[in-house]
């Protein structure tokens, strides 16, 4: 009896040890599964789509896209892998862990552009350029855009939509009440600052802004306004000198712009900053075109209750960011992912998704009549304007550079560094990336 018990303890102990060891060796598996092509299966019975679209207009967009998908690919089951919370940061953290553990979803949402660079360098993404040929996307997407998505000759994602970052939202009645022309077109930042000064004196918050990332968003539009699209692009490829006098002047403008903003900015997120404009507690707000949903949800009329124009000095430039879908290395249902990407790229898919989400299709052959009044103006500009990549939304730089830029910006706007320190920290942040 005693011997029996001891034996069973021994067996149990050994079993647990063995289990633990296998668990460990499983996770420390090979790291180099990168170059082996689409390692995973080709099953197309289902597709797990990993996004952070779990609420609001984003959820509505995803639902519309899924409806289009079910129509085009009735045999493939859609598995929603959405992770809510933290404006995508919770999802990105989980995605990072899953990719590191060689357990990728079949396809995941990511901002198009340099935000993907980390995954690309880590060998976690498949090149999808052949899908661009298969789906005829090189004709459907603007050449500017395709060029921006190409990294060393390869393309790693298919955009589902396009957003514009350089939009100035205005509450015309606040301007009117303070004796300013609500329809004034500002040619430059200086013209705009003159009105901001007047509002400041009248005791109104001239410009609303929120926490650090929205301050980076504002910074990027001011850099774009002062430097112009070519020099702005040069900031990311190294041809524009971050330490140069031009950038100093732009940062001085940024400092001035920040002096017009609300004191509680660091405690707010973008919807609250936009709300200040909607409620007439602030005159202006710089935010991407997704803010239009906030105005429309509250029954505000475009043109009378609010207006949206390019940030002063950025007329004719489209500061783009895009959500896009990828094909991870080792996706368990590569066939399902292929079907999903086909829907994402298709005209029906893009139209359904963007009509619901408030963004615009990446395809130039979409019919503007399917979209709202604001979206129609955005579609026009996207077709004509110079396209540049957004800094704050991962199109222009890798994640670590953006984090370093955000740190430097927060340090500057909270008063912990001066302009020259700020400038050299920005230079260091972009040089390291």
């Amino acid at each position: 009896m005693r011997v029996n018990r001891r034996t069973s303890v021994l067996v149990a102990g050994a079993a647990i040890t063995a289990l633990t060891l296998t668990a460990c060796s499983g996770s420390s598996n090979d790291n180099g599964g990168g170059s082996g092509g689409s390692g995973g299966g080709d099953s197309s019975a289902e597709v797990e789509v990993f996004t952070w679209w779990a609420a609001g207009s984003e959820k509505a967009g995803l639902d519309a896209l899924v409806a289009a998908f079910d129509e085009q690919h009735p045999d493939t089951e859609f598995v929603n892998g959405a992770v809510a919370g933290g404006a995508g940061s919770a999802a990105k953290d989980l995605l990072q862990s899953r990719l590191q553990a060689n357990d990728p979803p079949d396809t995941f949402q990511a901002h198009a552009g340099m935000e993907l660079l980390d995954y690309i360098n880590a060998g976690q993404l498949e090149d999808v350029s052949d899908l661009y040929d298969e789906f005829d996307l090189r004709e459907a997407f603007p050449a500017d855009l395709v060029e921006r998505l190409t990294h060393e000759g390869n393309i790693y994602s298919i955009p589902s939509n396009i957003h514009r970052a350089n939009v100035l939202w205005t509450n015309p009645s606040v301007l009117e009440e303070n004796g300013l022309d609500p329809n004034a077109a500002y040619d430059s930042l200086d013209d705009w600052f003159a009105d901001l000064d007047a509002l400041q004196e009248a005791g109104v918050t001239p410009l609303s802004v929120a926490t650090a990332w929205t301050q980076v968003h504002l910074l990027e539009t001011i850099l774009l306004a002062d430097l112009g699209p070519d020099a702005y692009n040069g900031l990311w490829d190294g041809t524009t000198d971050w330490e140069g006098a031009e950038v100093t002047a732009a940062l001085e403008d940024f400092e001035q712009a920040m002096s017009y903003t609300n004191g509680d900015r660091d405690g707010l997120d973008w919807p609250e900053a936009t709300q200040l404009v909607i409620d007439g507690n602030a005159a202006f707000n710089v935010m991407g075109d997704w803010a239009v949903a906030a105005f429309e949800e509250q029954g505000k009329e475009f043109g009378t209750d609010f207006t949206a124009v390019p940030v002063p000095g950025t007329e004719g430039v489209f500061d783009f960011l895009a959500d896009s879908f990828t094909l991870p290395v080792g996706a368990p249902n590569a066939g399902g992912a292929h079907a999903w990407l086909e829907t994402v790229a298709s005209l029906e898919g893009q139209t359904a998704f963007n009509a619901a989400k408030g963004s615009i299709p990446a395809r130039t052959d979409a019919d503007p009549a399917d979209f709202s009044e604001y979206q129609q103006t955005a579609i026009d500009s996207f077709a004509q304007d110079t396209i540049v990549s957004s800094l704050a939304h991962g199109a222009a730089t890798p994640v670590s550079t953006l984090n370093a830029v955000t740190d430097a910006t927060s340090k500057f706007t909270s008063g912990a560094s001066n302009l020259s320190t700020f400038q050299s920290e920005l230079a260091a942040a972009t040089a390291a990336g």
Partner: protein
Amino acid sequence: MIKSVKRVGPPLLLLAPSLILVGIFVYGLIAVNFGTSTTDIHTAAQTTGQEPSSNVWFKNYFDLLGNEAFQHSLKNLALYTLLFLGGTLLMGFVWAWLLERPIRGESIFRSIYLFPMAVSFIASGVVWRWLLNSGQDQSATGLNRLFQMVGLDFLQNNWWNNVDYGITAIAIPAIWQLSGYVMALFLAGFRGIPEELREAARMDGTTTWQLYRHVLFPQLSPVALSALIIIGHMSLKSFDLIMSISKPANYQTKVPAIDMYIYKSSFDYANAAAIGSILLVIVAVVVVPYLIRTNRKEK
């Protein structure tokens, strides 16, 4: 030999699974973390082995400690801990002292004081984020608005948005939340003192103050020490409360745990691991002397 195996063997076998699990998942992972912190894995490609990484020993530690932003985080952590510790100990002690003599409705007071502890830091952070809103005058909400309503306008301030000592504003909700717990500890301490001691002191003709000062307070020092350790290590690990009141990118409220989070999400695993090790060392500096002390006492 065989005898001693027979004596030690079965209990050792019984303990083996937990020893192995703790060995791997606690100490093993601490070792892995330390190993990562001595490498130069600062990019995503290195984390998956697409690009080589090498051992740089303590370079990450020197870089971090020499980095002005990280020093700012450490300073914030020190400030926060100081105020959090001082505040909870003081409040907890005073409440316990007030409740020490049995009074009517004591259990109600006890529950009221202890209740905030039942709320998670994240949930209370959401509320305190609004209370500690830094808008002033027309745009004031939360506490600033309250100060206006009662005519104490001069008390309005920008709370955690001050870059030098804003972090101390976040210690306020932390104190609110844990003072009740410290009170419970002290109350248990008071209750643990035998009634005979009080009676003996009264027989000797002490005043109430002398009774507390020379008889009761000295017996509370072990409780105070436990409270110090528990609150101290909680404070050093603070992350959730700060994250839910402020945002990780806000420079004014950065602490090392938040830096670790940001490095980790930038794929900079080496620096994240180095900060983890630094935090472990700081907590060890606080906790280990206490463990040694209690260990000695038990012997």
